[in-house]
């Protein structure tokens, strides 16, 4: 089947989904949905349909990004628009199906939104506060289409960008990407077009393209979601890039911990081969290109280009000094363009809709949009995509809905373990490459972890540092040994044995590590400590001088006490204590034996609001 014919059947397929003759049910089954129980929901859907004797089609879709209220189930009933339902359980979905499909009650209370205009008491999906200010370019199809269905992707304009690219000269394609202002979404923000140009200019052959899907930042899941939800958006981008550079082979380097994404990619690649969108003489253009998947072993540093390349070549994943850059001597010593998953997905969008359209979003130096995985102490966690330049405040409080339980915002950590913590007074900062860097953090691949007043800032820095200590490749001294020294020092501080000199040691050594580490991992490793010392020096000082952890996270610095005059003697704390540290007779005030107490905080959590008798106090002063 040629592409034109394929597009015609794609159109039919898409119509059949959205204007069906029988109910279409789409279940959000990316890994996030699965983790929230989408598998059980799916089984329940199938059982219910069977029980009710309803003939319907059940599909797996990707992730819409509203991960906080998964599993999501979309229902398209003949004659009705698509409605998304959130927080499904097997029971809920069972009654929903019966209510909606049999009794024609669309259950507005369970609905997240309706696709299109508000209707029947259900608000429009795009008016949802998590979605309304998003601009979804890379994520254009995520949660919309069935990721395993090439026809769906085609129906949404898929591979038109490739067709357009193949009709242009490679140089013109690069010019288009340059004009779009697209910069690398992996973190460093190198202009994509410029990178390709270098690679194209190199006379050595063969050339390679690599898709860096070695996502490893704590709390980051943009690449995984995107690959699980819309693999073709990435593959089309890779094809465009390969054509522009003159690459004959591409590698998707993805961590083995992403089995679903790998499966979806494999299936998508097989589809492309079937339809001459991959292999020899693609679409009759004379362009030959093949793509393989290489699985990484979950090593954080392999997200760094030179380490990733070494890993593909079967060597130990360790970065090397650049130059030479990958665009001159990358994979097998040949010119190689390494781009991140999201970058590739943006490339296909740029080629579909044009450079001007893409450049119309964002700020002058940071064009387009950026995806973020919004996590931590925020009401609406999930995967979002916003125009560059949106303020952190808009993201966290607008899209994310602010901090749950009315707690106080403390900081937001961006840029992964090499990024920094940005405090409340900088919430007005626009997210773009330069502004975040100026604030001591950086864009990174898009992790955004929100901290509230219950997060100890020292502990947070310590956590990110311990990640680096474990993930350092061990090649260069400052990163291998220096981060360990920093970690041990911070650990001392969180245990109350820090000294005033420790801060200077951290600042000095931190500066040395930044100055002398080989790769970005080491150069960024001290950032979480340095930014937190910069913005939250008082909390450090409290730990060191007063032995107080105001967030109560540092166990060595807190104690739990039962306020005698408040305790009603209900005994619930005693029963919840895992270390038998609480004693007391029923009806009488209980006491905590500080020697036995493991400081788990259960007692504080279980003590009824009526009494509020358990208090967290500074250790040694309780």
């Amino acid at each position, binding site marked *: 089947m040629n592409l034109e014919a394929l597009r015609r059947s794609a159109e039919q397929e898409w119509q059949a989904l959205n204007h069906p003759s029988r109910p279409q049910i789409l279940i959000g089954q990316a890994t996030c949905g699965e983790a929230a129980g989408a598998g059980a929901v799916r089984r329940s859907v199938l059982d219910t349909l069977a029980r009710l004797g309803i003939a319907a089609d059940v599909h797996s879709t990707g992730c819409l990004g509203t991960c906080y209220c998964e599993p999501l189930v979309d229902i398209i009933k003949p004659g009705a628009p698509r409605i998304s339902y959130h927080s499904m359980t097997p029971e809920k979905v069972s009654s929903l199906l019966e209510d909606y499909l049999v009794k024609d009650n669309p259950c507005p209370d369970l609905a997240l939104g309706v696709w299109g205009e508000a209707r029947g008491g259900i608000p429009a999906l795009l008016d949802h506060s998590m979605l309304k200010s998003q601009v979804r370019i890379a994520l254009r199809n995520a949660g919309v289409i069935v990721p395993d269905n090439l026809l769906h992707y085609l129906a949404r304009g898929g591979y038109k960008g490739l067709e357009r690219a193949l009709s242009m000269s490679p140089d013109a394609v690069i010019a288009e990407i340059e004009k779009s202002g697209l910069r690398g979404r992996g973190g460093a923000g190198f202009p994509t077009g410029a990178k390709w140009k270098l690679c194209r200019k190199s006379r050595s052959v063969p050339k390679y393209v690599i898709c860096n899907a070695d996502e490893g930042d704590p709390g980051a899941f943009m690449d995984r979601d995107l690959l699980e939800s819309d693999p073709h958006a990435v593959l089309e981008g890779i094809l465009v890039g390969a054509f522009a550079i003159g690459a004959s082979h591409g590698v998707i380097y993805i961590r083995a911990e992403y089995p679903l994404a790998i499966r979806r990619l494999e299936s998508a690649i097989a589809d492309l081969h079937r339809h001459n969108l991959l292999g020899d003489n693609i679409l009759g253009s004379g362009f030959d290109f093949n793509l393989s998947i290489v699985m990484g072993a979950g*090593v954080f*540093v392999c997200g760094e280009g030179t380490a990733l390349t070494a890993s593909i070549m079967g060597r*130990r994943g*360790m970065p*090397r*000094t650049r130059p030479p850059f990958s665009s001159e001597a990358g994979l097998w010593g040949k010119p190689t363009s390494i781009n991140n998953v999201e970058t590739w997905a943006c490339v296909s969008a740029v080629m579909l809709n044009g450079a001007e359209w893409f450049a119309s979003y964002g700020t002058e130096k940071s064009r387009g949009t950026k995806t973020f995985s919004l996590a931590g102490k925020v009401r609406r966690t999930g995967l979002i995509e916003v125009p560059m330049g949106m303020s952190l405040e808009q993201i966290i409080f607008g899209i994310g809905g602010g901090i749950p339980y009315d707690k106080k915002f403390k900081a937001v950590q961006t840029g992964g373990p090499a990024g920094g913590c940005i405090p409340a007074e900088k919430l007005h900062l626009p997210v773009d490459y330069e502004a975040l860097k100026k604030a001591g953090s950086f864009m990174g691949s898009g992790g955004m972890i929100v901290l509230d007043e219950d997060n100890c800032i020292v502990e947070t820095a310590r956590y990110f540092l311990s990640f*680096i*200590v*474990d*993930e*350092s*490749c*061990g*090649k*260069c*001294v*400052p990163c*291998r*040994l*220096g*981060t*360990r*020294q920093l970690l*041990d020092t911070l650990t001392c501080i969180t245990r109350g044995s820090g000294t005033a000199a420790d801060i200077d040691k951290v600042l*000095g*050594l931190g*500066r*040395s590590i930044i*100055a*002398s*580490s*080989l790769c970005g991992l080491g150069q960024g490793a001290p950032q979480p400590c340095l930014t937190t010392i910069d913005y939250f020096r008082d909390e450090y000082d409290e730990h060191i001088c007063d032995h107080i952890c105001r967030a109560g996270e540092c166990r060595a610095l807190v104690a739990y006490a039962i306020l005698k005059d408040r305790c009603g003697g209900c005994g619930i704390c005693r029963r919840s204590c895992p270390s038998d540290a609480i004693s007391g007779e029923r009806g009488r005030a209980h006491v905590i034996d500080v020697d036995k107490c493991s400081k788990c905080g259960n007692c504080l959590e279980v003590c009824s609001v009526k009494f509020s008798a358990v208090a967290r106090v500074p250790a040694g002063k309780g």
Partner: protein
Amino acid sequence: MADIVKIVIDGREIEACAGATVLEAALSAGIYIPNLCHHPDLEPYGGCRLCIVEIAGMRGLPTACTTRVTDGMTVKTYGGELDRVRRDTLQLIMANHPSDCLSCAKNQRCELQKVTAYLGVTERTMARTMPEQEVDDSNPFFTLDRNYCILCGRCTRTCAEIVGVGAIELMGRGDQTRVGVFGDKTLMESDCRSCGECMARCPVGALRPKVNVVPAYEVLTTCPYCAVGCSIYLGMRDGRLVSARGNKDGGANRGMLCVKGRFGATEFVQHPDRLTTPLIRGDNGQQPADWDSVLDLVAARFKSYAPDEVAVVPSSRTTNEDVYVAQKLARAALRTNNIDNCARL
């Protein structure tokens, strides 16, 4: 002929070969920049971070060992931030390195000592962070003592780049990184060919010979085993052959050796099994005899045969001079062409 470029290091203009690294250029001009992971035989690595320099027009503190010279480059190797960062790096290494220098196999030949002395560091400012590490004593010729290892990677790179065996590699991550072999076994259970090239390049006492005698003097000679003809220094001490090392200027081996050359060329020389007296076979088998009577006997017997009744087989193991005299004996004294060696065996 390689192109020559001019660069300025610490105010001194020097000439360097185009394509050389800043560190190579500096060292060959006699300007020392502290370094540990660099080795002239190995590809640039940039692991120890001691050779950081400032280069006009370049950001940050590039390592001299990984930066290539360009004409007109201005390099600063010391001062201010550079010294402070370099000392921090050295302190990080020292924190986990044993301090028993006097009893260390590498004492006075240790490159870490050299760097420490150069930077004038006399005190440790950082706490030890590493636990005691396992010592691999399995190889009969050398020891891998990870407690002394500074993870410069010279050994693992040697195994991959020089020898092409890849028996040892860095394993683990972060500060758990260590030199090891496949499956975390011992060297003897690995692909290691025991050439000792790694040991020869270890800057510290982590890979050290089991017979660790500093020779009183060395004599340059040629390895007696295969026909590669490795040029080799044999070390003497107290009347014994105690060491062997490759000669960097050796035309065939350029410093490299195999297990037999490095560890097997001396022990047999003074072995008690050596024949040290002529023997003559009598009724009771072979009996010791004095040189004079033996030589007379041989000469007399040889003279008694016609040229086509005798044959001489000189050795392909002995020297040219030995062989020449043997063939001269055959042709000029025995007057026979019945002479051959095992060249075709």
